[in-house]
């Protein structure tokens, strides 16, 4: 399966290597660098690259390439999924997954990789089990360790791997028992020039932060489970129960985890919470273009649209932009031609507007396409699909936990074509 792993930073240095079978020379990465050169953008490096004796499967996250070396047939998604889990684990352990963080914690990284794969086959990828095996570094622990010489490696061996509930460690204790659930929905949409919706869909996740003592058994039911069209669960959710009763019944892992991700059935019309009025024009023969953009709320059920961020990739011919925002601040990067406008909150009484001129290269012909506008926003306390949690019950433990549920709607891949 997975033979070796190389970590390559943005400037093309291999800064970490790990081999699970015999050592593969790092020169194998040359094929990767070749492919990287051929690709114009970092994202355009093909995830699967064949070389004469090996195959390279890579993922790019946090501007680091994780390149796995494969020697024989293996489902590529298997490797890709695993690499993403590695990144998630690093992020979980170090807070960020940067080159610096990995280099600082190289020993922990090595210990983790050692536990995660045996002979190239995943062994322990559950974060709960890993955390029992290897304690995540904290500032306090690092200090204590330096002084006392104690270690990050768990003293006792984990039981999780053998238990019926491998995702939960035993002997969890909290003084405040709390369970928080965040229902986060994202709208993916493409809006065309005239403002009509070409495609729109809602994808949602329920992220949980559960800090409960012992072995609680939770059930979560929805007011309108029919909305959920396609779902994927954390392994803790009992599938049979969902099939039969549309109730989520599970013994939660300890800490943060994603309980469920879902797709809202496409029959439901998606309410688009913002609209954009735009007028971006370039005139033939003139070295100036006009830019005028107004945002406004629509179908938000009275909730405020916050953290609005507009970004747009302007045509290559644009030299600079001279704009005037009615609120917030804008930046234009003359190298990448990326215009971003941090709007903040939309005030329905005074709609935010960005207006001004763009200067084009003298003599260059008029760009034949108009830029696409990407919009990000957040709406608190609302799930746009109308999904509502009915109740959350706990069985198996005596105490009364504190429960909380939060709703939020965000823009996913929300694009306006102009």
């Amino acid at each position, binding site marked *: 399966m997975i033979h070796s792993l190389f970590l390559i930073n943005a400037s093309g240095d291999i800064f970490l*290597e790990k*081999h699970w*079978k015999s*050592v593969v020379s790092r020169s194998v990465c040359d094929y990767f660098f070749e492919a990287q050169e051929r690709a*114009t*953008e970092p994202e*355009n490096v*093909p*995830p*699967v690259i064949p070389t004469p004796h090996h*195959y390279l*499967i890579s*993922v*790019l996250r946090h501007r680091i390439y994780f390149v796995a070396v494969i*020697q*024989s*047939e293996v*489902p*590529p*998604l298997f490797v*890709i*999924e*695993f690499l*993403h889990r590695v990144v998630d684990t690093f992020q979980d352990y170090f807070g960020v997954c940067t080159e610096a963080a990995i280099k600082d914690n*190289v*020993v922990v990284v*090595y*210990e983790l990789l050692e536990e995660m794969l*045996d*002979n190239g*086959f*995943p062994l322990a990828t559950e974060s709960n089990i890993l955390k029992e095996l290897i304690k995540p570094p904290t500032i306090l622990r690092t200090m204590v360790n330096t002084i006392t*010489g104690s*270690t990050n*490696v768990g*003293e006792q*061996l984990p039981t999780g*791997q*053998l238990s*019926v*509930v491998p995702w939960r460690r035993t002997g969890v204790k909290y003084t405040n028992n709390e369970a928080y659930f965040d229902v986060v929905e994202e709208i993916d949409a493409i809006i065309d020039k005239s403002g009509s919706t*070409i495609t729109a869909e809602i994808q949602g996740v329920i992220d949980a932060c559960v800090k409960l003592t012992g072995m609680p058994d939770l059930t979560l039911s929805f007011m309108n489970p029919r909305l959920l*069209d396609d779902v*994927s669960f954390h*392994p803790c959710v*009992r599938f*049979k129960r969902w*099939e*039969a009763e549309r109730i989520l019944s599970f*013994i939660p892992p300890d800490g943060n985890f994603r309980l469920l*991700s879902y797709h809202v059935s496409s029959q439901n019309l998606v309410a688009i919470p913002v609209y954009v009025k735009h007028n971006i024009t370039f005139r033939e023969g003139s070295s100036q273009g006009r830019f005028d953009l107004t945002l406004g709320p629509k179908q938000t059920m009275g909730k405020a649209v916050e953290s609005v961020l507009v970004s747009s*990739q302007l045509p290559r011919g644009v030299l600079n932009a001279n704009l005037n925002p009615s609120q917030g601040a804008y930046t234009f990067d003359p190298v990448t031609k990326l215009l971003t406008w941090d709007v903040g909150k939309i005030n329905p009484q005074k709609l935010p507007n960005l207006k001004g001129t763009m200067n084009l290269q003298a003599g260059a*012909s008029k760009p*034949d*396409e108009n830029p*696409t506008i*990407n919009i990000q926003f957040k709406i608190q306390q609302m799930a746009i699909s109308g999904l509502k949690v009915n109740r959350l019950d706990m*069985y198996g433990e005596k105490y009364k936990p504190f429960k909380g549920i939060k709703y939020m709607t965000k823009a996913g*891949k929300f*694009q306006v074509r102009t």
Partner: protein
Amino acid sequence: MSTGALYNDQGSAEAAVEAGQETTPTSSGSGAAFGLFSTDFKKNEDLKEMLESNKESLKLEAMKRIVGLISKGKNASELFPAVVKNVASKNIELKKLVYVYLVRYAEEQQDLALLSISTFQRALKDPNQFIRASALRVLSSIRVPIIVPIMMLAIKEAASDLSPYVRKTSAHAIQKLFSLDPDQKEQLIEVIEKLLKDKSTLVAGSVVVAFEEVCPDRIDLIHKNFRKLCNLLVDVEEWGQVVIINMLTRYARTQFTSPWREDAMFDENNEKAFYDSDSEEKKGQADVKTYIMDPDHRLLLRNTKPLLQSRNTAVVMAVAQLYWHLAPKHEVSIVTKSLVRLLRSHREVQYVVLQNIATMSIQRKGMFEPYMKSFYVRSTDSTHIKTLKLEILTNLANEANISTILREFQTYVKSQDKAFAAATIQAIGRCATNISEVTDTCLNGLVLLLSNRDESVVAESVVVIKKLLQTQPNQHSDIISHMAKLFDNITVPMARASILWLMGEYCERVPKIAPDVLRKMAKTFTVEEDIVKLQTVNLAAKLFLTNSKQTKLLTQYILNLGKYDQNYDIRDRTRFIRQLIVPSEKSSTLNKYARRILLASKPAPVLESAFKDRDRFQLGTLSHSLNIKTSGYQELSEWPAVAPDPSVRNVEVIEPVKEWAPSVGKAKQSKSEDKFYSDDEEKEENASDSSSSDDSDSSSSSSEESGSESEEESNEESEKTSSDSGKSSSESETEPKNNSKKATRKKKPADSDSDESDSKASSSSAESSSSSVSDSDDDSEPPAPQKKSNVKARPKVEVKSKKEVSLLDLDDFSPAPMNAPKPSVFSPSLLSDLEGLSLSNVSSAMQVTTPSFGPMKTFELLHHMTGKGLSAKYHFPRQPCLYQPSMVSVQVILTNGSDHTLEEIHVGDRSPASLHIHCFNTIERLEPRASVTVSMGIDFSDSTQAANFQLCTKEDQFSVSIQPAVGELLMPSTMTEADFCKEQKKLLGMNETSATITMTTANTSSQTINKQVLSVANVGVAPSSQNNFHRFAGRTVSSGALVLVSLELKESSSALLTINTEKSIMASMLLQDLKQALTEA
């Protein structure tokens, strides 16, 4: 000094630089002496010193720095001797880091690595399973050929370890050993075979990986494990699921027949047991061979389906490809939704999934058409994602949606990403050829693009237009002339060559323009690209043939230029053309045909998807992704025309035999023959038990086995007993309690129904499922206190039992009450007393009683029309089976409806072959109109899978099948309220299933509820102190797992129905049945 010099030679320059960057050395005197050479030797010297120091923290610090070196790919091999000494360290982290180092460098330093082996060998015997496992892990990772025998031994031992975790590790070690020494293959296959039989979900994934690596062609090893793997699949860890699903896909393609026939509509029939006899009749009547899906094939499809909901994208993809390659065509579409969901995932996941969708969408447009909008391109997508989406959109295009797609394409053509715009133009071209309605529209659109400012767009349009024109050249001479006008502005070679080719091909349609183009080309010939030159030569030749008057000189000039070109292709072409077209004496024959050769009408190119030929690879594989056969790729075979014998997958009924205690199996055999309990049996039992090794770590597997062990007793007499594998810990403190209850016990027998006195009593004082981990049941040498309590226990029981049946001899009584007779007459409290004696505080709740209520639902087994006069009906009498405790007893009423005597009615072949049926004795004669009732025992192994067998008469054979309702797979058990609650608490969480139901108030009386519940399931009523609470308890017949049903009535006629059992599938089925019964009533 000398060592320092030695390192000096070995140390690589890299290491030197690296070490120099590290923190300044806590320099030693000798280090300073080498200052001149470089700091690194000081450095390594320093590390060495640290490793040899007595302080753990220093050693650890050194190892951490060494790991840092390894991670950067620096050479740290010269430290091997110093590091290897620490392999036996007590400090876990230090030890782990040493392991990391060992695995990395052992191959290079084989001799020194051998020093560490003894440490691992010792650790392999450690009582802690994790230490055993990690020792095996490292030992097998050290790639030193000399230790192969040691590894082999360790693997074999670990493969029969009690801990599933260690067994898992041994499965991994198999692959490592195989890659180190392929000669060990045969021995390793034996280990694999053994591990494949393992029932632990932990092992399943890993052993299949080993199987795939070592012996993927030994498909015969899978037969017996196929059903088990299917059933375990949901609980296997996600990575194992991927491997198992892929392997099973391959397996299924060799073992089942193709479901992709026209008449595949009937594939569900096999699930309905009653159709079986019909289908047989059909076969006789007509030759039409209806396709019936193998039940195992169906099992595989059914058990993989829930995994589509997995969060692991690789699992979802694996299931999708399984359905694609194995499922009947109309079922494949269930994977669509899940695949589309994966498109929300990371870029790399999208890439692979889109590739697979592209291949699928060529063959099955309909699958993805409803999700077309999910493939719309976003400006933020990376180029290869965009191209793949475009590919899929093109594949999905049809008459109905083409206008939408073309409108979408128009946006894409304007994209800033020019490579993508070019790909869009090609896609438009493909749509135009595939859908004739839009060809003209597309062509016009493409012509408009010819005036685009971007060169690559124009070039791509030219190429595509060229291809389109070839399909219908007649009407479009204006387009050709338009392109000729553009010719001067186009610089992309491919586009120029395309235009030249078009000119030559259709030169008769543009007679004025073509020679002029040739003239221009003659001027620029020398500076053109090769491909353009070749087409120029072609154009010249064609014009020479059609219009030699105007172009003769030009042609000659170009041919001369070509003759001296640097490229030999062009020189060759020129020579060839010259011979072909210029008349000369020698080549006159060829010359005659020149026109026909050069101006032959050419077939239009077919614009095909780039994914056309990818379906030769299994979906989801690396080979498919790269479109080349990768090393280690296993071909997916074609469906066999005739399915190989399905009975190879039949498994012997779960043997209650542990590998490490084979004598138990013997005991069982002897028992089934024994008419009475004998002392021998006891002894054998004890002997075998004591021979079973005791490991308190083996939780899951051994509890499973101990469960089956409890089934093994059987007896021809009317007692049904189960052996007890109670806990060995004694509980003498329960004594007083027993005494106090003694009084009440005596009263209770009155409770027992008199009508049951003739029914078979059964008792099973089984072990607890979870905590009786150490099933070192009744050790032959039990601890002293236990003995004491036993002595006290015996008389009590004896008094009781003698009163009741007086069947048991005092001597027959084993330390644990294995043979408790007629327990149905015991009150629950008495039973709990008995349990107390059996030294198990858990098993008290486990007594199995006979039913208090027996519904007589009769089912048809064989209709008299099908059976040529013989008809058969069956019902479940709900009595413990006489023949074996693990069997469900079934009564069959055979009636002879014909006018002649039927002879020799007996049971014939059965399927699955492993099915344990206790047949009725052959009925020699059955007179016309007569009927006879016979009883059978069937071991359903706690599944509702139908038992198929043949009912034979002297002349005929009829296939019949009995499908039990889930409730019939239970036997009632009596327990006190307290016990019930206690057991229920143990079966929470995963083991609990519940539903809220609505009942009419009329039905909430306890009588009706009892009646309804008992009509559905063969459970016993457990006492309840609350009126609104009803409790029922039972145990599964085969494995003896506890099934607890509780019904809590709430206000407004709603009620909460809860089922607690380990058998979650049974639970959900039972829940459904009960729900229905209770709401209907």
